């Protein structure tokens, strides 16, 4: 009897203690995570644009905890109702440099990739899917690799023959190295290719010990020659940028240092680089650093296929915290967009070059908002260049910013 009473008391106490008190001091949750639950563009926190071969604008968005796509045939003024790529309940990767990716092949089929958190330790998993019916339905999502450790920060690029090149950061080599008693910082840069954007080849390593929390930049230097720029971890924990140009779709080239900034930091910068390759073959790169040698946003170009880069040129007003630069090279000009913040509002600033990055126009403000915002992205179709920028307060902006010269 006594024992029964004891057990009841213990059970009651356990139940009572397990109940959390009213969370009067809970911090506010971001709108997109708590309040704005719809799969709607107005709820999106990340939006990635891509043009189809027919000039239709597609966007992949992270909204209401889902990845969804929508299309516009009037230059981004109106969009179709977003279609979620999967109904599965997933914990999306909310990292500042994470975003859904979308490329459109020559048939107009949509190829989408995105990353999720697979567990409470924030290990990631990258999924891919494809739509062959104009974004109405999607194939069941598939992991980009069968390895179940951690993948994040995928990047997609489409080769001229329709092959999809994917690169991502992968932590599969950490545990084996540590088991052998070897130090292993960061993650590994891995890649795979796909003929259809759904099933990918076996993942292959490009380089170990990259920074694990920054987006990658991917472009093609020609058919079968993908180029990846990434924040590397150099000797002594220095998180500067590196680049590799593949000699063929399966063979990464040597790793070259983009800039010797000497940013030694045992932390995650959460701010990766951007890369675009002009039809002339010039590599255009931008990045952020807070190194000993330089601090802020920088641009440099390479005229020798990424082997060496020009002296870094600072971007933006250092008093206004320039960040999140994006570069786009077209046949008509090279464009740079980035964010600045003056303590009250965020502006997107832009400048352009008509001589392949040798000289640049004066920066000008092209958009602003007074609340949180996504990274500014640039996309082109034909001669026209557009800014894509999701803002919390002012919605999605898709605006022409250049016609070339």
């Amino acid at each position, binding site marked *: 009897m006594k024992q029964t009473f004891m057990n009841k008391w*213990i059970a009651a106490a*356990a139940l009572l203690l397990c109940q959390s008190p009213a969370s009067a001091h809970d911090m506010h949750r971001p709108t997109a995570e708590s309040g704005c639950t719809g799969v709607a563009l107005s709820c999106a926190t990340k939006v990635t644009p891509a043009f189809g071969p027919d000039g239709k604008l597609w966007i992949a968005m992270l909204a209401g905890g889902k990845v969804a796509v929508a299309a516009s045939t009037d230059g981004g003024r109106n969009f179709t109702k977003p279609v979620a790529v999967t109904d599965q309940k997933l914990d999306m990767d909310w990292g500042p440099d994470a975003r859904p990716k979308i490329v459109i092949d020559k048939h107009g089929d949509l190829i989408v990739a995105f990353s999720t958190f697979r567990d409470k330790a*924030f290990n990631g998993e990258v999924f891919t899917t494809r739509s062959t019916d104009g974004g109405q339905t999607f194939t069941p999502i598939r992991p980009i690799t069968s390895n179940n450790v951690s993948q994040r920060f995928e990047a997609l690029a489409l080769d001229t023959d329709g092959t999809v090149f994917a690169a991502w950061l992968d932590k599969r080599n950490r545990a084996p190295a540590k088991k052998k008693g070897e130090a292993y910082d960061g993650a590994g840069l891995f890649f795979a290719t796909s003929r259809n954007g759904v099933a990918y080849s076996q993942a292959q390593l490009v380089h170990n010990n990259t920074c694990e929390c920054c987006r990658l930049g991917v472009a093609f230097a020609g058919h079968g020659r993908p180029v990846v720029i990434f924040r590397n971890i150099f000797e002594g924990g220095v998180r500067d940028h590196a680049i590799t140009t593949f000699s063929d779709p399966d063979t990464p080239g040597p790793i070259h240092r983009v800039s010797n900034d000497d940013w030694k930091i045992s932390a995650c910068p959460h701010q990766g680089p951007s890369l675009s390759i002009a039809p002339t073959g010039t590599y255009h790169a931008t990045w952020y650093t807070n190194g000993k040698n330089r601090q802020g946003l920088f641009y440099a170009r390479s005229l020798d296929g990424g082997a060496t880069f020009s002296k870094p040129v600072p971007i933006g007003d250092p008093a206004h915290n320039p960040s999140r630069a994006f570069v786009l090279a077209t046949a008509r000009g090279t464009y740079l967009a980035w964010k600045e913040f003056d303590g009250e509002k965020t502006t997107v600033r832009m400048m352009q070059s008509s001589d392949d990055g040798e000289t640049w126009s004066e920066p000008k403000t092209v958009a602003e908002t007074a609340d949180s915002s996504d990274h500014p992205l640039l996309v082109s179709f034909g001669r026209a260049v557009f800014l894509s920028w999701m803002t919390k307060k002012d919605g999605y902006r898709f605006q022409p910013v250049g016609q070339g010269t």
Partner: protein
Amino acid sequence: MKQHLTRDLLALMAVLFAGVAMAEATIEIKPFERGSWQAILQAHAGRPTLVHFWGVTCGPCKVELPELGQFAKSHPGVDVVMIDADLVPNTPAAVRAMVSQAGLASAENWAFGDTFTERLRYEVDPKWQGDIPRSVLIGKDGSVRTIEGSAASADLEKWAQGQGAGRH
């Protein structure tokens, strides 16, 4: 009898587990909003203060937090202020669990409470782009020194001694 003992042991473990959960649930996490930084500076003016920005998803923070817990325990003369500035939204439960396990439950705990994080960071340091961990050492005289990335224990000790608040 053996069965009863096992059952009682399990029940006791449930109570202990629930007790830890209860203790964690009572940790106050203040929302760090516009003006909070100035409020913190004013509240700790004249006292050596270690402000540490961290996040649940930040790998180096997982290593550093228990070290800061030890530092707080052995340096009662230093005010320790913890601010969760993660770039990925953290659940309150995860924040509480981490500070509790690191021995920082009794420290002053805050978490970013506004999605306009650029503005929050700008108030702390206009040049800060969000990288964590990050420590700000504020001296008795108001002097400010920022340490990017994980702070070395020896470095913190040296600063604390300079403030007349070394290890006890």
